[in-house]
């Protein structure tokens, strides 16, 4: 868990069907647009947003959200 690790919350727009369960799970991080598209406030996750982001991933009925961890070189 070094400072070079970047953790992002990503939406697969092809899979997303606008259920909006992610907003219910993590309202502090995700808001739905008028068209029910999830808008993520900060894609690059701070430590405090990790938990809500995981909740949003779990809450999606069509598995359109995922958390990606990358090491910055």
């Amino acid at each position, binding site marked *: 868990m070094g400072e070079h690790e970047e953790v992002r919350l990503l939406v697969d727009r092809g899979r997303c069907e606008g*259920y*909006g*369960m992610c907003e219910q799970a993590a309202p502090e991080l995700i808001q739905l647009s008028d068209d*029910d598209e999830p808008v993520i406030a900060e894609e690059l996750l701070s430590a405090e947003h990790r*938990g809500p982001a995981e*909740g949003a*991933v*779990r809450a999606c009925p069509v598995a359109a959200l995922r958390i990606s961890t990358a090491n910055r070189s």
Partner: protein
Amino acid sequence: MTQTRHIVVAGASQAGLACAAALRGSGFDGAITMVGEEVHPPYTRPPLSKGVLTGAESHDSVFLGGQEDVDLLPGTAAVGVDVVQRCVTLDNGDRLYYDGLVIATGARARRLAPDHPGEITLRTLDDAVRLREALMPAREVAIAGGGFLGMEIASAAAALGKSVTVVDLVAPLVDRLGPVLADMCLAAAAEHGVKVRVSAGGVRVGFDGDTPTRLISTDGAVLAEADVVITAAGDVPNTEWLRHPGLPLHGGVIVDSCCRVAPHVVAAGDVAAAQGRGGRPRRLPHWSNAMSQAKIAATSLIGAQAAGGDPTAPQFFWTEMFGLTLRLAGQLPPVSVPTVLQGSFADRRAVLVWPATATHLGTAAAINTPLSAPKLIRLANNTTQQLRTVR
């Protein structure tokens, strides 16, 4: 409750995992031990009767992840509990002492032929993988039970090109969806070649050896013969391990509006029976209910704040079958007469609203319309509130 240092979550389920996550989210930094009867880590069940069965989704896409800070004991069942000693007994003889206990052992498939090990049901991931393999070479499929599960299996089998017959005691789906939506689903099922037979007297499964091969009415008439015969006759809560004087059982384990069962014990998901309208404790074995109860249970257990959910709050529910995606919020089945808010019912692309009545909440449904859960819940709520304003 700062002395809560070890929480045991019985059930490696969606509800159990959501509860563990909510505990962490509320700042609980003690140990969490999760015991699960299945060998798998927690996974989500809704795709099992949909994409996993048709092969559109791989079976390992269902795993939930996010249990890094939970000690998971897979393949381990809780077989007893002592709420005085605060201890759970496991099937390997071990005892787990807890400061807080989450009961999330869910439910299992109800069997029509409990004495036959060959009866086919669909509840677990292993069930889904086995059924998918059994469906591959089959030509004819028969399903006992026309609820959501039975009809979703029928839809998946029809999509795989099978000849499908569904048998139930009543017209499928009416008790959950009401006549308007049920008729639409049954029309779509018929267009996909699915035959529906109603046998009011009863249905039993007939076997050749260990293999279920037919569905039979009580007077012995064969209702359907098939290569694969599946029982989809509802679920039974896993409460046998909870037989203890301090734990109230009625259908499921009875919870109050804060999901509390007894001191230091909460429950969430398919195993929990909540006091609903009408007073009788009732299980609400659905995904969105498991998720909302898990959050309430977590806050209640560590006394973070008076959690308290609204047990009459509109719930969200969805199903997919025969080219229809239905999303529903509020009272199920809907009562009274619906209004079309948007789209066209004849085109099977519409948003419908059933107004609340003096005795029932309102309902909102989106048919093949990607309306989000929060919007649908708001619609269902609005009809309810309008009525409250008028009265």
